[in-house]
């Protein structure tokens, strides 16, 4: 399997451990991954509010680069907001030829053009469906039996444009987690919102949303997620969330490829647990 990798901004900063573990796990599974050259920000949830056209042009710029890089490879995103922006842009451009023409007029200043042929994929989709639990189980060196894990998908991994999972009750992680040998803690907040930027702009509202998820996951040894924004909110705000919950919350939050990498027996340099705010001292 060959992919063009779109890291997204968080992968160079706060969520470097997500990028590192993703690449290590995909290499172990035999994937060929090449980073998209000259990629820029997808616009996050901000560009389309600043200008609706900009909100389509910024993802389209990266899709155009991926189309030019060629080979019919899928564009692999690890951040759910980047993934949603690519899906949204492809959908809007396919439905509106005038918009496509306008977007290409804009991309012209960068020497780029987009024809609409690139498929964007989320890491979870690739792990669950291109490789699947059997290929993952085959690489497991240290089964993680005895570990209880709470899956957490967040919103934009599966909403609203997911072609690979249920937008309200996602299940893609279950077979992967079973392949690692863990016990799964199912809970009602698996696809609830982490609060995203509200933790910064409206902390009194946002922290409550993160706290509700952390509380639902408390019976588990750790939470696994596939979105850098969700990770930041759940891992970094546990002090504040504890004040809302009325008791101390202390639960490690892992990226799914970190947990897979742990079971694969990958070295700590590939997993970077030392970067977590809530220390990861499980099953090691």
């Amino acid at each position, binding site marked *: 399997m060959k992919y063009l990798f779109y890291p997204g*901004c*968080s992968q*160079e*900063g*706060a969520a*470097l451990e997500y990028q590192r573990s993703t690449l290590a796990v995909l290499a172990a599974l035999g994937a060929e991954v090449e980073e998209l050259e000259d*990629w*820029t*920000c997808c*616009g*996050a*949830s*901000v*560009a*389309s*509010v*600043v*200008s*609706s*056209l*900009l*909100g389509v*042009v*910024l993802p389209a*710029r990266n899709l155009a680069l991926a189309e030019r890089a060629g080979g019919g490879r899928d564009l692999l995103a690890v951040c759910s907001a980047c993934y949603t922006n690519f899906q949204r842009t492809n959908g809007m451009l396919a439905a509106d030829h005038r918009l496509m023409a*306008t977007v290409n*007029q*804009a*991309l*012209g*200043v*960068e020497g780029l053009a987009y024809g609409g042929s690139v498929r964007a994929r989320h890491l979870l989709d690739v792990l669950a469906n291109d490789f699947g639990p059997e290929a993952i189980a085959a690489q497991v060196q240290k089964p993680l039996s005895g570990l209880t894990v709470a899956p957490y998908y967040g*919103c*934009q991994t599966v*909403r*609203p444009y997911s072609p690979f999972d249920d*937008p*309200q009750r996602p299940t893609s992680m279950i077979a992967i987690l079973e392949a690692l040998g863990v016990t799964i803690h199912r809970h009602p907040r698996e696809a*609830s*919102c982490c*609060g*995203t*930027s*509200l933790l*910064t*702009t*409206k*902390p*009194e*509202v*946002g922290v409550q*949303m993160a706290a509700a998820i952390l509380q639902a996951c408390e019976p588990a040894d750790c939470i696994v997620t596939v979105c850098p924004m969700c990770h930041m909110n759940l891992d*970094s*705000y546990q*002090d504040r969330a504890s004040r809302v919950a009325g008791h101390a919350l202390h639960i490690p939050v892992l990226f799914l490829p970190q947990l897979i990498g742990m079971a694969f027996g990958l070295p700590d340099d590939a997993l970077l647990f*030392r*970067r*977590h*705010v809530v220390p990861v001292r499980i099953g090691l």
Partner: protein
Amino acid sequence: MTTSTVINLTAMERDTALLGQLAPARQLLLRCIHCGTCTASCPSAAAMDLTPRQMWRKVQLGMTEEVLRSKTIWLCSLCYQCHVRCPRGIPLTETIVTLKELALERGIAHSHESAAFYRAFADVMRRYGRMREVEFMARYFLATNPLSALGYARMGLTMLARGKLKIELPRLTGEGRLDRLFARVAELEEQQ
């Protein structure tokens, strides 16, 4: 009603322009049956001044200024729960994005913090082509309440100690990575 309403022509004219910009959204909202699924699904509805369903009713009735001035639009975290659950298939979350855009464009955003958040993010994006989290947060806190940054000091220091924050010197002069693309987009929007 005991209070009389003073008809403000300027406001009405502005409203007409607004209604024009919102025409596609209002057309879609004609399908709304006011079942309230959006409100029941919204994780921040309790903190809103207008519930999502009330907001959609006001958009239907053309009371758009009131909607643009509400806290509600800035409390939407784009979780798309109302969007996927709407039994009438109305793209509600996308419509909120349009409302935020109009409020920001008209400078009537209720939330100074939210407006500052979007501006700071867009500036850093245009300048470097990629997000720089530290500079973005610095710009955000300077534009809002620098003292409130103190509340994040402990978290910031922990993140710094864990290597999660990348400190880079700002580059404030010279052409920004996406200046030309942003300018072209603004030009094209002007023409539309």
